[in-house]
């Protein structure tokens, strides 16, 4: 069979913790990073809560030259890539440049940077638009900048599938590993918490307008009223099993199975396709539903979408057949950053035998899933399934397991 794609490094920038240790100690204890928006004055908007990454000082890590040409989300992605490589014990000079690639996902590119340049264009004129606009906004920016920073020339890529994209990127990284490339830096970091990004997110109609941070993002709860947007995500080092073995490094786990489907057109009357993505991921990993120890849910907190997700989980695993959790209740929805962050959380769950809780949620009657709420749940975790769904109908499922 194909070579195993292992995760050997984690780099995390999350609203409830910068860096793996802070993120995980907050997540396992149910500590939320959702609060009032500080990045701009949100008082005139109907939604005023977000998950912002705390304490990220780009000047601690990045030169002024890099900072001036990058959006906030690219800066976080670059630093997360540094941390992931350090965690993997990799310095790029250990590998041939063509043996390392970069595959990331994005949802909205460097949108805050883009707002700044649009503002200059329309208020001051075209001569005021930055020479960096052409490559700071577009969706490929993080893959390009990470490859330059670390001298990585191997097979690379960028995918956009809204919130599902982060898992699609990891699956594509696995594809490149199986194709023979030893190291792929992968994952996603997203952010569009700026007035212009906020207007676009509000237009989507799925953002919670609740005012209390602990009552605003409540998937599978009777009070579910939309989500809180967040920023950040995770960058992972995905490595060929032979390379990891040769280097003798600690392995977080294996990207063991993946499936992706697309929902039928709204109004078609046909069933949603999430359950099929789960089945494909299980089959791809050669795993039975009974082997899965936890499901990290997409957790839209839109009642219809929660219902679809709960139905898909129940269809595959049976009523209360597997613990389900949504630690993104502590970060908000991070768009393409969400999937890789959940994969990181799943690998930390495997390491520690702890399933983090779904914060603030009381499961509504009528859902027959086993939602982990209140306290973290302890017990061996060897196999975890991560789900991510993107607006428009994208469904991705990624199965990770102990190596």
């Amino acid at each position, binding site marked *: 069979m194909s070579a195993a794609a292992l995760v050997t490094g984690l780099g995390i920038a999350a609203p409830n913790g910068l860096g793996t240790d802070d993120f995980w100690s907050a997540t396992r204890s149910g500590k939320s990073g959702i609060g009032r928006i500080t990045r701009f004055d949100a008082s005139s908007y109907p939604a005023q809560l977000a998950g912002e990454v705390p304490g990220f000082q780009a000047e601690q890590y990045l030169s002024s030259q890099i900072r001036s040409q990058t959006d906030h989300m690219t800066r976080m992605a670059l630093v997360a890539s540094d941390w992931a490589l350090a965690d993997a014990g990799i310095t790029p000079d250990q590998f041939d440049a063509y043996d390392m690639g970069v595959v990331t996902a994005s949802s909205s590119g460097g949108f805050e940077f883009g707002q700044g340049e649009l503002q200059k264009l329309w208020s001051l004129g075209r001569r005021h638009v930055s020479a960096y606009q*052409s490559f700071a906004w577009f969706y490929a920016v993080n*893959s*390009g900048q990470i490859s330059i920073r670390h001298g990585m020339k191997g097979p690379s890529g960028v*995918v*956009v*599938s809204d919130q599902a994209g982060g898992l699609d990127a990891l699956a594509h990284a696995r594809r490149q590993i199986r194709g023979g490339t030893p190291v792929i830096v992968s994952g996603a970091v997203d952010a569009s918490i700026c007035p*212009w990004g906020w207007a676009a997110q509000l237009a989507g109609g799925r953002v919670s307008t609740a005012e209390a941070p602990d009552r605003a993002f409540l998937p599978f709860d009777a009070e579910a009223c939309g989500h809180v947007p967040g920023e950040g995500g995770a960058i992972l080092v995905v490595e060929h099993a032979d390379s990891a073995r040769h280097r003798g490094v600690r392995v977080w786990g294996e990207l063991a199975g993946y499936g992706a489907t697309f929902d039928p057109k709204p109004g078609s009357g046909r069933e949603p*396709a999430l359950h099929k993505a789960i089945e494909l991921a299980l089959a791809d990993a050669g795993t039975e539903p009974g082997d899965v120890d936890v499901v990290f849910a997409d957790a839209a907190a839109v009642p219809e979408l929660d219902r679809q997700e709960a139905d898909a989980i129940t269809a595959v695993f049976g009523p209360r057949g597997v613990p389900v959790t949504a630690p993104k209740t502590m970060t908000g929805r991070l768009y393409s950053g969400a999937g890789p962050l959940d994969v990181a959380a799943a690998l930390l769950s495997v390491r520690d035998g702890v399933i983090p809780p779904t914060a603030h949620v009381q499961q509504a009657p009528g859902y027959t899933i086993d939602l982990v709420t209140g306290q973290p749940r302890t017990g061996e975790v060897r196999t975890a399934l991560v789900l991510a769904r993107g*607006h428009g109908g994208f469904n991705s499922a990624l199965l990770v397991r102990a190596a």
Partner: protein
Amino acid sequence: MAGSRVVITGVGVTAPGGVGTKNFWGLLSEGRTATRRIGSFDPSPFRSQVAAEIDFDPELHGLSPQEIRRMDRAAQLAVVSAREAVADSGIDFAGTDPYRLGVTLGSAVGATMGLDREYRVVSDGGRKHLVDHEYAVPHLYDYLVPSSFTAEVAWAVGAQGPATVVSTGCTSGLDSVGHAAELIREGAADVMVTGATDAPISPITLACFDAIKATTPRNDDPEHASRPFDHTRNGFVLGEGAAMFVLEELHSARARGAHIYAEVAGYASRCNAFHMTGLRPDGTEMAEAIRQALAQSRMNPEDIDYINAHGSGTKQNDRHETAAFKRSLGEHARRTPVSSIKSMVGHSLGAIGSIEIAASVLAIKHDVVPPTANLHTPDPECDLDYVPLTAREWRTDAVLTVGSGFGGFQSAMVLAAPRGAGT
């Protein structure tokens, strides 16, 4: 399915010069140019005022009023092209498991036109930093995240398999089709509707390329403004468009008696890890992508009959890739016709890679190599056979098509007439 061969059985193109594959090939084979002074808005404040625009009426091409309202122009171009490709392939999806039908769509800059237009409104002409969200169009979120384009194509063709946007800047159109071929080879799908789209001709795009002088200021002669490999070239001409394909496995295409345009015989992508916009003159990383694509196709340099160049018409690009062709193909580079259709249809960023795949498979179909228009005085450092001015009848069984873009991406694909596969 591993190791299976993937072929193109349907083509749809919406490019400057006319909607539909027939109009596209007419333009290329006659060596006409579709570049002109920008007409969709007043370009006079800008340094570069020329572009290759499409005269495109979405209603005329079957989109409903609600689809037109909902979709950015780039999505409209993609859907119209996807419908043409599916019709051209003759495939009937009624018998296809929708989970085995997928969509990948390349786009470098997503809904730039829609975002630029709507930003101007919600910010009241850039005056309000805290924009008025109440002035936003209801589908603004779909402009924010361009995977909405893939959703539109998937809905149009009834796909429920793997679906994504591939967004690697100006190589997106190659990488999207390369990705689709990989999905069929690994068994994740039986049929892929794939290709790329971009509609970037908008003030913010002009401004950002003005700022780095990437686009040509040859405003007094727009029809001849795109001049790849010419000594007088001074930047690219922005374009727009989409090309979509139906990809399927060779044996199932044969079994249903499909017309086979070409096999996607090899594909590879590498990064230069050098600079977000700059290129080293030696073309090392593009040459590596070409070598890998050739190796995957089990071909030698001598098997390549025609090179469809990136040929953007910037000083550095055309030298960079001339060096890459020599480095990867050796002496054979000097014997092989090379041309850039960007001389005629401009550079439509993420879309152009797919539009160039369309040109490549049509060259195979017609045994005609499209020319490089406007090439009168070759740059001494660009010393290959660039097929100046007029198309050439040329036995074309295998084409190398390449792309190079911001972010450092370098991609190469080998397309080959399916020997022994029948057509």
